């Protein structure tokens, strides 16, 4: 059984993410304790809410430092939705500095007919990567901010009206999904299984 720790910093969808991971056969620990995070072989960063509040909670609890340290040790880490966004250097949402584990900035989506981007959309592979082997797929999104498809860490992309965003990102052992795998039915389980099998290399 693959062990994974879901980092609990007060975000909303921790419970449904844990249930989805358990359906994939993972042994799930939920923790807000930096020392537990530091000792975990595999990490997930859930996300619901705003980037500023998420970063404040991560920094003040010591979890941000534990995550940066885990990334340096090449521990596989997957952020979901806002959990993806806080992996980058900066977010325009609340104009906040983020974890800086991936390079680039999160911007409000430009060129969409309606925002938030809410609902099921295509995820198309951009390059070969252990996390993108089951793509293309249709997954569930709920967000107004994103990184654009030309960001260096993009491994899969999603078209929204006049624009294209990065919907899966990865660099080294740090990865993120802009959509919600825990609410994306079989397509979501496929991504979670790939993550559970991933050794953090490319």
């Amino acid at each position: 059984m693959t062990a994974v720790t879901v980092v609990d910093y007060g975000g909303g969808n921790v419970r449904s993410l844990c249930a989805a991971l358990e359906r994939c056969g993972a042994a799930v620990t939920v923790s807000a304790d930096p020392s537990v995070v530091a000792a975990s072989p595999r990490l997930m960063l859930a996300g619901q809410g705003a980037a500023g509040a998420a970063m404040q909670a991560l920094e003040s609890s010591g979890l941000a430092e534990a995550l940066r340290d885990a990334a340096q040790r090449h521990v596989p880490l997957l952020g979901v939705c806002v959990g993806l966004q806080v992996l980058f250097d900066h977010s325009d949402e609340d104009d906040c500095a983020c974890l800086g584990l991936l390079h680039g900035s999160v911007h409000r989506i430009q060129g969409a007919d309606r925002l938030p981007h809410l609902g099921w959309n295509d995820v198309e592979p951009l390059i070969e990567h252990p996390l993108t082997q089951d793509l293309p797929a249709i997954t569930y999104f709920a967000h107004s901010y994103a990184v654009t498809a030309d960001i260096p860490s993009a491994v899969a992309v999603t078209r929204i009206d006049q624009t294209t965003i990065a919907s899966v990102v990865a660099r080294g052992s740090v990865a993120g999904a802009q959509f919600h795998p825990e609410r994306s039915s079989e397509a979501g389980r496929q991504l979670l299984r790939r993550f559970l099998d991933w050794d953090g290399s490319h």
Partner: protein
Amino acid sequence: MLRRRIIPCLDVSGGRVVKGVEFVNLRDCGEPVDAALRYAEQGADELCWLNITAGDEAWDHLLAQVAHAGTRIDVPLTVGGGVSDEPHVRDLLGAGADKVSINSAALDRPDLVAECAERHGSQCIVVAIDARRTGDVWEAVASGGRRVTGRNAVEWAREAVERGAGELLVTSMDSDGTQRGYALDLYERLLAAVDVPIIASGGASSPADIADVLELGVSAALAASIFHDGIHTVEEVKHTCRERNLPMR
């Protein structure tokens, strides 16, 4: 391409799924978690759980049921009904709801929408509007249709979006439960007035009714009776929509 969504609605009273006509004469239609799982299996893109029992005890029961449902289903879950303050929203999101819908409380105190959107993000705050036709205008009504507000529903929609609503769930009270089709003119006005996703609700009698309202440009169609009674499955509705070249999952 972003797909249009089909959202079966579970009206839940006393822990059971019920359905009435124009919000009265409720009939028992089974266990909510069973119904949720059945619809998810049929291809529902999202589920809406509408709590129609008031009171603190009912609220605790609701949170427990949502927590149970939320860990068992693998599509998004929107929960609403009786949400009157920010702690209600926080509790429901914590229990496993992906979005929370606010209705009468937002009409009574529009600032509530901003408070919830700032704290939790617009993407999980749905403002539900019940609208009734009065002459040529649509009026927003409160408390399940029992309370007249005098507010123009389209104006209220615009204000709710300005205050941070990430989505609107708009029910035509004249059509709800009657199976006479969606009130298309209401959604045309709303689509022109706001730039957030709109969920149309009230009046679906057939897959064709659902395709009609989706063709207008609404992001999602919500229906209850036609699914609960087993008249049509979600898959049949999606098949009809695909035949009309609507982008479906």
